[in-house]
């Protein structure tokens, strides 16, 4: 079923070759529907970052199949040519640290992405401000990133991940620097946005505070994924 969302089949990734080769991903299978937020959990060295990089189109897998937002981007050795445009149009990234551009104000940090896609400045900025309303950082729209609290920065980073309405969002430990109230708030925002914008979201996490909120969780161990039902607890 190659609909929208994320669809991964038998994905493998080998780093290096010969004696020093490392099979970081051995057999990864994942399905994330549009509007769904799933957790990805695994011990250190299990292949989480490698998987995010493959999904984020910054490294090329060795075998398997990847379909993002209805488009085949990798199929057993074949990969889409323009990875830059693919990342810009299909994938939103949210990192553990916000990684905002320090010399752009909050609005332009977010508006830069639609601008890069050729959208006029005014429209790009109004899209950013729109998201700020939903994320409750509207009042900080003109500030520089260094003037924001950690939680505000993280919400701006989430806005940046969402602003191009990508079919896929990859979030790497997005709640690590936050307290439990704010961590849950971030997860709620991701769930809301996923529903509203039909986005498939993968959240890599160790965070005990948020693990119970997922309806479905993928465990990864030694480069192999196992699916598990989560608690799907409401977070009020």
């Amino acid at each position: 079923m190659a609909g929208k969302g994320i669809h991964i089949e038998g994905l493998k990734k080998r780093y290096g070759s010969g004696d020093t080769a490392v099979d970081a991903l051995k057999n990864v299978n994942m399905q994330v529907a549009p509007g769904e937020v799933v957790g990805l959990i695994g011990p250190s060295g299990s292949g989480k970052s490698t998987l995010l990089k493959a999904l984020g189109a910054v490294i090329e897998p060795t075998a398997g199949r990847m379909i993002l937002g209805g488009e085949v981007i990798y199929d057993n050795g074949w990969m889409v040519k323009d990875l830059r445009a693919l990342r810009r149009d299909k994938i939103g990234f949210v990192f553990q640290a916000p990684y905002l551009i320090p010399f752009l104000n909050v609005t332009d940090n977010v508006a830069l992405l639609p601008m890069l896609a050729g959208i006029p400045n005014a429209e790009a900025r109004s899209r950013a401000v729109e998201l700020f309303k939903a994320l409750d950082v509207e009042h900080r729209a003109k500030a520089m990133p260094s003037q924001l609290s950690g939680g505000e920065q993280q919400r701006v980073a989430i806005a940046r991940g969402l602003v191009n309405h990508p079919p896929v969002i990859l979030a790497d430990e997005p709640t690590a620097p936050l307290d439990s109230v704010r961590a849950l708030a971030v997860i709620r925002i991701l769930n809301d946005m996923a529903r509203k914008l039909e986005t498939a979201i993968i959240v890599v996490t160790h965070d005990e505070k948020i693990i119970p909120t997922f309806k479905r969780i993928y465990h990864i161990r030694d480069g192999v994924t196992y699916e598990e039902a989560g608690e799907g607890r409401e977070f009020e």
Partner: protein
Amino acid sequence: MISLAGRDIMHAWGKFVFTGVGLGLLIGVTLSMAGIYRGMVDDAKVLLDNSGADLWVVQKDTLGPYAESSSIYDDTWRSIRGMPGVERVANITYLTMQVRQGERDVRAMVTGVTPGEAGTPGWPPYLVAGRQITRGHYEAVADIASGFKLGDRIQIRRNHYTVVGLTRRMVSSNGDPMVFIPLKDAQESQFLKDNDAILQQRRRTAENPNFNRPQVPGLLEAVIASQSTNPYVNAVLVQIKSGHNADEVAQSIRRWKRLTVYTRGQMEAILVGKLIATSARQIGMFLVILSIVSSAIVAFIIYTLTLGKIREIAVLKLIGTKNRTIAGLIMQQAIALGLIGFVVGKISATLLMAPFFPKYVLLEPLDSVFGFIAVVVICVLSSIIAIRVALKVDPAEAIGG
């Protein structure tokens, strides 16, 4: 799209301004260096123009009177005056020496000019104060750069002169101010000996049996008299009648008088090509060194700024920024640094350096244009190392381990 380079510069403006000012002072020195060379060439041209001569007649096979010493008899001018195409001729002497005024010593090019009416070759063409020399002895006209005032008493060798006139832009090719005195005085001062030397010379002459012949009365006195006069000048300046060709007149003087003659063009070539060529090479060397230092500064600062932005660059790449945009960001910053530097440099050269430099500094607009182009080219080239680093940044770094 917004200007990433512009935003980054606004954000880190302190770094840019400080580096830009430092770079600017270097550029200012560079522009001043070029100005010093232009000033020397211009001084040389003014020296030739103001001499009022079309031809310089000098000792055979010398590059005189400015680049080499030259001496010819002081009556040579008579026979040149009669040659076809010659309007006016005048003897001239040049001697660079210390001129005393009170407690002060000024290095000057003392120029002996033939008395006559204004417009005589060799005379200063215009005065800013006072009058030209009218008496045959002990009057002087000085360039204002010497610092002398009207009425000052100045001392050249053992003689005293009164400053009766002041002129300007009359300097030697070394930049020493010129002091004009009557030709006879100047000839004397070139050979003036102190009393001991005169006595000694008389004694030596008297001891020489070839000169001291009791059977030829008056011989010794005649020899001594000829030794104590100086019948030489350094050059004869020639003005050509209008309608005559300078080269042809020069050719006929060369042929008939067996002297070396230079036209205005040849004289300029000697001054620029020989006399100030060494200074020009030194200045050229400095320009090269300053350019290298400037590019090293730009390269280093842009490289450091880029290294400080590696993570931002990784994020920019991850979210789909083109390599061209990132290269442009760095190059624009380098150029911006160059622009700040150039503006600071131009201002500091014009207002802070040129007016206070002890030599005439001529800042040619065209040199500034070349300087500007050079600065931009240097900045673009210097940003290449930083751009290579930025292009190698892997977007995967933004995702981390």
